[in-house]
């Protein structure tokens, strides 16, 4: 590990996100996290698609490739699989990752390619100037939905778990320490790490995450999960989370209990069964179905931090291992040796 500063990861490019955009904060967090991780910039590749967040590679001093819309995941899969010695990051947004690039997104997760994916979720298409995205709330009014959307949105965590994801973290642009922690944990995790970065689009979707971004409300409305720690939250750290099973339907659900209740759960991010991770990741997500928070009485907090972090063989490792095993046993290893094995005759 090298000793590095955040400034070692700053490129010479002027950062052109809008003033007040949440991407500025993630950019800084990435530079801090990369310094903390201590891998030299020339051994890092940052791959992106198209969108505001996909400009990120330009602002990092590593190798970068700003590709085409939705395909960052496929390009990153090619980089990492062919060169597993590199540290590969993917920068993507809710449109790039969940709409046009949805197929690559679920397959990089399914294969468990060792990538660190930052999925910037501002619930809007910013670069094309304000259309609804796959994570926009139902009824959301935008330039392409003047009467409100009639679509059900994705909850990214659900998609990640549905694709058998091994790592899912969620963070918030205005929470720098949690963001840096999540990014470092994403790198430490061997496999496909998805970090959902909730970011504000100050121009087209201002206040979309106000429920938790607002300093006054954040402590009451969010919980930062930490592996091995009790699930306690609230301004006065007086609330805890527990699971309750409905006696009629047997459906488990999260409930809020007093912090000293013996039922308060201890977070286990390494549990391979995703049931509880799903319950945690879905807390507060009913808000994505709604345009306004008005009338929502749900007191469950939105979970931030590393929700799931489990071990599984990575694709890049498995592919390279298989090649090495076959080569180990192979009699022919060069082209001339290969052609010698052909049924052939002299003329």
């Amino acid at each position, binding site marked *: 590990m090298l000793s590095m500063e955040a400034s070692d990861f700053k490129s010479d490019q002027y950062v052109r996100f809008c003033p007040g955009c949440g991407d500025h904060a993630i950019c800084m967090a990435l530079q801090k996290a990369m310094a903390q991780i201590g891998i030299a910039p020339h051994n890092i590749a940052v791959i992106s698609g198209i969108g505001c967040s996909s400009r990120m590679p330009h602002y990092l001093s590593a*190798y970068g490739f700003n*590709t085409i819309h939705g*395909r960052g995941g496929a390009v990153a*899969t*090619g980089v990492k699989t062919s060169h597993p010695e590199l540290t590969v990051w993917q920068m993507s947004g809710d449109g790039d990752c969940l709409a046009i690039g949805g197929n690559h997104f679920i397959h990089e997760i399914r294969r468990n390619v060792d990538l660190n994916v930052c999925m910037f979720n501002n619930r809007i298409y910013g670069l094309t100037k304000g259309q609804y995205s796959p994570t926009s709330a139902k009824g959301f009014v935008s330039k392409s939905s003047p009467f409100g959307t009639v679509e059900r949105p994705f909850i990214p965590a659900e998609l990640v778990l549905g694709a058998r994801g091994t790592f899912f973290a969620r963070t918030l642009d205005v929470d720098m320490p949690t963001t840096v922690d999540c990014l470092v944990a994403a790198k430490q995790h061997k496999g496909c790490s998805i970090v959902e970065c909730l970011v504000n689009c100050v121009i087209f979707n201002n206040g979309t995450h106000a429920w938790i971004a607002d300093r006054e409300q954040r402590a009451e409305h969010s919980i930062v999960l930490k592996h091995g720690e009790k699930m306690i939250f609230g301004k006065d750290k007086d609330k805890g989370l527990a699971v309750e099973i409905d006696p009629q339907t047997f459906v488990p659900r999260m409930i809020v209990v007093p912090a000293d209740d013996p039922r308060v759960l201890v977070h286990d991010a390494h549990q391979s069964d995703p049931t509880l991770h799903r319950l945690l990741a879905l807390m507060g997500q009913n808000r994505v179905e709604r345009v306004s928070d008005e009338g929502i009485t749900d007191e469950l907090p939105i979970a931030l931090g590393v929700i799931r972090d489990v071990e599984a063989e990575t694709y890049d490792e498995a592919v390279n291992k298989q090649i090495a095993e076959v080569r180990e046993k192979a009699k022919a290893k060069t082209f001339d040796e290969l052609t010698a094995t052909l049924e*052939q005759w002299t003329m």
Partner: protein
Amino acid sequence: MQLTGNLFAQLGAELGHEISTLPDFPAEIRAPQGTLGGVSGFQVELGAEVYTPGDKADVIVAMNAAALKVCTLGSHFNHPQAQFDEEYALYHRNAIVIVDTDALTDKDLEKALYRTDNPFTELGIPESVQIVPVALTTLTKEALKESGMDNKSMLKSRNMFALGLVCWLFDQPMDKAIHLLEDKFKKKPALVAPNTKVMVDGYNYGQNLALSVNRITLDNPESQQQPGQYTSIAGNKATAWGLIAAAEKAGKHLFLGSYPITPATDILHELAARKDMNVMAVQAEDEIAGVCTAIGAAFAGDLACTSTSGPGLSLKSEAIGLAVMAELPLVVIDVQRGGPSTGLPTKTEQTDLMQAIYGRNGECPAVVLAASSSANCFDFAYEACKIALENMTPVILLTDTYLANGTALWRIPKLAELPEIKPQSVPEELKGKYNPALRDERGVRYWAFPGMEGYQHRNIGLERDAERGTISTNPENHEQMVRARQHKVAQVAERIPELKVIKAKGKAAAAKDVLLVGWGSTEGHLHAAANELGCDLAHFNYIHPLPKNTEQVLRQYKRIIVCELNTGQFAGYLRSQIPGLSIEQYNEIQGQPFAVERIVNYVKYGSK
């Protein structure tokens, strides 16, 4: 039938004949047996100076009533009143037709939609055709009665009886054939003995009964060949091996990103099996991911390839544009099939030419090559890699169903005799000062990739500044960059061989002002037609850019006829590249290779 045909072709090749094969099968994997739609065929020509799998067969083996009908009526097989017509029949008037009489029962005839119980009369097969009725099924069962095999397994060996019979007919020695069978079944040794027995019985059947047909003697072609080691190879396998050889020669790691698609899938199969050669083959989630994983590998410094067919090339267009813009080496193999859309997945066509040259948004030049025989798929796959790596450009290699599935005789090269490949690199003195817009004197940008200290940069699909390599929307810069990318592809013409005309041979150059022009897989047919006509042939493997002397060569002829399996894409392209050139076209779009006879008739009489 595909196995039998392949064995016969390989046998011919081992005995020193030139070969050319044409497998033809339905798109369905298990098309209903015995029906007209389910007929699967395998055509092979062997002898001296073999350019094509042949127009009309000398010998037909019809394994059932449906096959007999399809062979006799050709494309008219589903016309209710159709009878033998030399124009459509797959065999000629004096051919030998071997028929399995056990497969002509009432049920068989009904399945193949015969109206009467005498298929030969109903089909109007002329008396000059020598019909050889053989009870293949009965004889095969007889041969295997002591083998203890079940009925179904015995029936599968019917083909071997036919193979033995055909070997007798062509006077091919049994010992070589037996050796081939042993090799073919070396993973299933239990099958060697019964299949050998059936094949030898088939041979002896011809010998003992002294079938009253004339055996066929082949010309001995040995003197024609360049001395060396030979094998028979299918186009897709040759393509895959060309990539393997190029990677080793270039000292690069070979990466394939691909998605299964007919008729290109065998390239993926072959490369997935070649882990012993250190090949990394990724079966991606879709066509786009196939090319994009390859672009990722190219960005990281590998020899990166993707293999596909027409519909897949459409899906890859945007990403190929990215490779053009990012100026990365990339080899795209398009095994063309009948289109548009899903089209004719198992049939051959040359209809992706325009898509390969122009089918991308923006001014988006890429190098386009076309292989012209199953064997030279190897050479042009190798050449595609060489051009891509040395010139930092995507190269699209066009092959097609006919080349991909067909086999030809291939002289096995040694790696040392193949041309050098020097992948573009970056001079040491640019360390710390590198950016992705810096070019050498040819106009080819320098190549640095992750892992190299001091060359970190950001590559983009956005327009880049010609000096600094960063994003630029400057109007003059854009034009400069458009021209820089065009120049880079155009200068490849300095490094490729000039166009060589194949001179009229044999017959007096009756038509010395006439030039046949073709590209890609039609070379064999056009060569045979040119010989027949006594005219010259200009055949193109380098499509974009064209060889430098193209205009000069073409202007020497009064009558230029561009022959293609499309509606005139190359003809149109030539007209655009050489304004004012007067070009005639001969086109067929039937999903089948040319018939030499039809080309000859067109050139002579102006009609097929």
